């Protein structure tokens, strides 16, 4: 991966700047500027003149590590470094993404928050879909259990909701 990044940055005659990101719990990560710019938030900071170390108070080291992995894997998409990809490469990325979100829900939510704060469009999409996959095809009871939600409907209210579109509840698993 590293050689690709060097090639990329050389190609676009950007200085191969390294940016240091620090997490809320004190971890630091040195990454190429190209990778850092996957985050709109960081890109704006850099354009505004920030250099060197960028502190990210809202993101823990554990999550930042994962986010950076994502950015490195997807550095070739969208934005100034966009390149035509082979179908093989696209397939490989899809598999990588699928593995990436095979984590507990709590971690996914932390990733969503980080992706939102750092404004990384692809990651927001990927993590949102991962949460939605936990809702898809599930009954309301299942969803409440998975997300720890309290059912605050009265029995009459709940019945009215179910009757409004009875077809959605007939064959629920």
């Amino acid at each position, binding site marked *: 991966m590293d050689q690709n990044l060097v090639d990329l940055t050389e190609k676009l005659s950007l200085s191969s700047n390294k940016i240091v990101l620090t997490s809320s719990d004190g971890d630091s990560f040195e990454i190429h500027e190209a990778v850092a710019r996957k985050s709109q938030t960081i890109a704006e900071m850099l354009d505004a003149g920030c250099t060197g170390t960028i502190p990210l108070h809202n993101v823990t080291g554990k999550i930042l590590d994962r986010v950076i992995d994502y950015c490195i894997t997807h550095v070739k998409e969208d934005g100034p470094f966009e390149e035509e990809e082979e179908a093989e490469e696209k397939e490989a990325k899809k598999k990588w993404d699928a593995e990436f979100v095979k984590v507990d*829900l*709590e971690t996914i*939510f932390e990733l*969503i*928050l980080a992706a*939102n704060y750092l404004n990384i469009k692809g990651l*927001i*999409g990927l993590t*949102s*879909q991962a*949460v*939605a*996959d936990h*809702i*898809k*095809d*599930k*009954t*309301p009871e299942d*969803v*409440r259990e998975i*997300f*720890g*939600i*309290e*059912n*605050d*409907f009265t029995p009459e*209210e*709940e019945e009215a*909701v*179910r009757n*409004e*579109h*009875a*077809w*959605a*509840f*007939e064959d*629920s698993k």
Partner: protein
Amino acid sequence: MDFVKNLDADMSLAILSCLDDPSDLVRASAVSRSWRHFVIKYSLSKNLCLKLFHQLTSVDRIIEIINEAGGSSSSSLIMDDTTSTTTRLLLDREHRVYALLAKGCTSSPIKSCIADAITASTTDRLPEESIFNTLDARDRFGFTPSYWSSTGHHNTSVPETLLYKLKGDLCVINEVSIQPLQANFHPGAPIYSSRYVRFRFGHLVNNSREDTEDENKYVWTHTSQEFPMAQENRLQSFKLPEPVLCIGGYLLVEFLGRVQICDIDGLYYICVSHVKVMGRSLAKSFGVVDSDISGKFALKVLSYGDPQEVDEKEAELGIREIRLRILRQYVNFLHRYPPVEPL
């Protein structure tokens, strides 16, 4: 984590907007009060419909007829935007209606959607070669070939059209299949296909009637790409790249470019033995009413029953249609071969 309660609205929106099955959205609205409030407030059902079918941007209001069947009140209450007093009521109604619409558009059974043939741009010999023959899958009736024929032209670029009424005001169309005629009764058994076909979907302009001859009374809101047609005697399937929601219930099949000359008179013809349209009819659940604003419609809910269930009444109507067609064919047959007095 109950993200609807704990995350910002835009993040919850990003998550719930990933649900593209209307049943999932409805079930989400049954999870808790705040989930239901969220689904309704952010018009998720409506957004799903618009995402699936951008043709729905021409719907500007909803009409529900609420019949309290079996309840103490036996009167009908017509609810539309003019009677709604709060935004919340409007959003509730939109959620109710668009969830049903999304369900109908994605899971009503796929069936033949032609209700009737209306008219052809030209017909060589009426009634033997009328457009009604294209409704029948068989390419002959007894020994008589069953097909529509255009009039002949020297100019191969003169197009032809066939106009059909679809089942109901709202149909989601997936594909149109056409079988050109191979005229075995002509020397060389020529196939009178066209070079391309194209499909237009639309509605009748306000207050027009089908039987008047005015050509400008139809508005075509969606036009497909041009599909190349093979000069082959088989039912050729033209699959639309995305299903099209036809608002108004009219389909115009356009035949562009003539390819086959008739050796007998030296003119180019287009002849078709069968036209089939496959899709989902929402006739059971929805009607469409012209709005006061030109180009806009009101969506009228006819029934909240499960769109996936087959209607017995529909099946009955289908049989009646087939009987009518067979009757028509008998009449045509008699036209061609009037009874002769025995010597």
